[in-house]
């Protein structure tokens, strides 16, 4: 995995003509953003924050998508337990 990451960073840097350090900085920003979204959605799903707060933090589309996912998973679990 480490080798894959190193090679990918090198390839992206060469393709874009920018330093590897800048690629790593962008990767860190994207990674933190993803983790932040996961955290906010987790808090919303667990009723720790309300819907409007979640929308303000990560956007309406992500919140609606999470709601669809929750509905699908709840339906699946109920079916699996009772079918």
């Amino acid at each position, binding site marked *: 995995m480490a080798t894959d990451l190193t090679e990918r960073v090198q390839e992206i840097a060469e393709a874009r003509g920018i330093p590897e350090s800048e690629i790593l900085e962008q990767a860190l920003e994207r990674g933190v953003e993803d983790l932040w979204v996961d955290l906010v959605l987790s808090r919303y799903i667990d009723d720790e924050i309300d819907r409007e707060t979640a929308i303000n933090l990560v956007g309406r589309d992500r919140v609606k998508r999470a709601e669809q*996912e929750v509905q699908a998973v709840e339906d*699946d679990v*109920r*079916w699996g337990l009772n079918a």
Partner: protein
Amino acid sequence: MILAVVDAGPIIHLDEIDALALLSVVDELLIPQTVYQELEAGMVPPALETIEYELVESDTTGLGVELDPGETAALTVASERAAVLLTDDLAARDAANDRDVEVHGSIGILVLASTRGELEKSAAAELMRALQTETSLFVTDAVVEHGISLLDES
């Protein structure tokens, strides 16, 4: 008695976590020819041959949905035969709900396998986490943990 028709999603996702055999937890499994052809375009999972299923034809003309051909075929068969549609695609789930077709996905199969004694509850929970981390399933990790908590409470 559970009659189910599956599209490519659950076949691929369950195979990716080495759990494809659990599809046999339903009583009768149908796979549309179109779905099988989609699998053949990549590689039909060898584990599919370890479970019983029936290949079925489908006439999708007039269904009027904007889904992939395999999803459309599976929804058509499910509607015609009053079968459960097994799909992991959220748009396909919406289309099924719009047509009053019962629809579930890979997570439902794992929970059903647990309920029917094919899998320990803890193993079902681990496989649910694997679906999220090792496959392209729609679901985010917070939602998977929510599903596991529902399973634990049962």
